[in-house]
């Protein structure tokens, strides 16, 4: 919890670059979702999201969404094509998360110049994801 807060706070207080903050938050999120995976395969429809995760040593980006462990989605059209309930989806905007809160396990987005993180409780439970205690504050029943 403290580490996440520190990252979120440092993004504002130290004026850290957005990309760097995103990379660190994604690193924490992916490790929390896949605590035992040595390599996490990520598919994304967003260049920015891809760029943020590609610098993580143990994350591999894949071009086929079916081979991915998690989908980082920022395009509403992408979600229309995905079969519901099969893949772990993490979105990049509040609007997308609100619209697809039944599909996505959570989202990370910027608001008021601040990085914001949200997990949807029932979707986490659906994928049997046990988030560490430090993420408690970011888990919502719905948005």
């Amino acid at each position, binding site marked *: 919890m403290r580490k996440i807060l520190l990252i979120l706070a440092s993004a504002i207080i130290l004026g850290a670059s957005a990309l760097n903050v995103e990379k660190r938050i994604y690193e924490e999120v992916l490790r929390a979702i896949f605590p035992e995976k040595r390599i996490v395969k990520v598919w994304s429809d967003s260049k920015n999201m891809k760029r943020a995760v590609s610098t993580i040593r143990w994350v591999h980006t894949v071009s086929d969404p079916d081979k991915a462990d998690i989908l980082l989605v920022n395009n509403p059209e992408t979600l229309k094509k995905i079969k519901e309930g099969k893949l772990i989806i993490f979105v990049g905007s509040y609007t997308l998360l609100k619209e697809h809160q039944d599909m996505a396990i959570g989202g990370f987005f910027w608001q*008021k110049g601040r990085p*914001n993180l949200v997990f949807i409780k029932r979707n986490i439970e659906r994928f049997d994801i046990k988030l560490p205690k430090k993420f408690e504050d970011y888990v919502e029943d719905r*948005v």
Partner: protein
Amino acid sequence: MRLINRIGYFIGIFIFIAIFYLYYATQHAEKNLEQNLESLFLQQAAEAAQNIETMIKKYVPQDPVNTLAREEFIREGLQNSLSLLVNSSFKYIYVLYRDQKGRYRYLLDGSKTDRGEFGQKLDVEKSLWDSVYRTKEDKIISHTNLSGLWITYLKPLIYDDEVKAVIAIDFSTTLPKHIRETTEPIESIFNYIFGAIVILIILLMYQLVLNYFTKKSSYVDALTEVYNRTYLREFLRYIDPSKYHILMIDVDHFKKINDNFGHKAGDHILKEVALILKKLLRSEDKIIRFGGEEFLVFVEKDQKQNDSLPINIAHRIKSYIEKYDFSYHGYRINLTVSIGICTKPERFKDINHAIKTADAMLYQAKKEGRNKIIIFSQQEKNQSCQIEYFSIYQVQEALDQNRVICHYQPIYDLESMRIVKYEALVRIVEKDGSLVYPGAFLGQIENTNVYHALTKRVLHLVFEKIARYRVPISVNLKFSDLSDNVIFRYIIEEIESHRDIAKWLIIELLENENIDDKNIVNVINRLKDYKVKIAIDDFGSGFSNFVVFKTLPIDILKLDGSLIKELDNSDISFNIANAIVHFAQSLNIEVVAEFIHSKEVLDKVKQLNIRYGQGFYLGRPAEKIESPSNAEVLLEST
């Protein structure tokens, strides 16, 4: 000069402070500007937050969270009002409330784009926001980044003394960035200037330190490590004579140490003596190596102006050195010192006169047998104060203005009671016509070119008289004058130019010097080649040594005045004089008695068969001389 130095120091310090202040002001100008801008924005934010609070309370008089959750219309209206306040500086204006889990959620959001929905969570710096709930006071959260200033102004929204929500205004400006971009080149120029000034100051400091050490080393005597005469010159420029007593200290028979043990031994002894002086004197006292083995000490007066202080110090020095075991290469050397003291230098015309007086006291101490302390007494002071000592420049001026003359004291043949020759005595005629006697100026010009010029002038005057009156005239010189190449050259030049009358010249050599110069025999023989006669003056006192007659071709012996003036009441003086006369007669040396001041003394002189005599009883010195008619005969008789 001191005032100029002080002004210089003051200006230097002022420039240094001004430069330092300018540098400080330049470095802090940007920061101050940012602070002022921040204050300006904060003031505006505070006013805006206050207006927002008033507006919310106007439309939502109680329980804002539940009311606005229900009343979408009011919420929209308020949000639209908030959005009117959003501009390029006030980037975000929003109101958050804290839910039961402690998460912050939107109550209102004035953002035109990216507007948060009611109840939407916003991740904020929780601890800082919590503090607003706790303290119920406004809070400012500053963030700085490369692009400029970013501040969040927080104001609690209080209902019934309870914080229900927090009004937040995020504002930022790029003005500091633009200011920084504008001032950076100016700041760089200033930095280069300050850098150059700092380098100059460092160089100046280096020069000053170098100058200080060079000056310091030039003030210290390399051998004894006490101050030297260069320092004395500087010291005397600013001295307050009333703050010091003066001691003149001389190592007795120092020449013997050099002669017997070598100059290295002499140097060793001087070092030891200097160390003893440093040990016995206080740090505020000044020790100066005045001459070869002569030390001048300025003893700082104590608060009581106690005259016994320098006397006690002098006794301590004398006693310590007397008991101290000086040794050199296993040889033990016993030393004594003579000390002259001048206790009140402020009573003299100037400090140089006071030093000369201390020196005169030292000379007196040596004359009285050495290992003595002589203090300048009040009586002597009174006498001394009557003597106006001449400076070297006054003597030079007198020479330039032909105010140097000779008076001539007649010397009588006591059998015929006729004047047979004269003794020339130098005088300076003051501008008011009064006479100045040699005691007032000879000491000051010794070992100077002025002394050389004076000697030449006296010889010239004497030869003029001889040429005119054809009478033997004696002049007084010292053995050291004959050893001095410059003076001897002058003497020879004068004699050469008056070769035909040189036989009338008598050179009286003062018998108060230790004659050990082997060259002196050659010098006197050279004078004798011109038929100049040689007399020994003041024989019977001081360094009187009969051996001088063995080594030197002496023609005349002048008995010392101290013996002659006591002839009528001292048998010892009579017998000594008698022995000297017999000795001289046996060597066919003419004897002259000086200081015949009474008939009684004259009778005694005659009783001793002394042929020639002079003194106030017989004739006082005068500018004019009588021309003896039988001068050639007189010359023969001499």
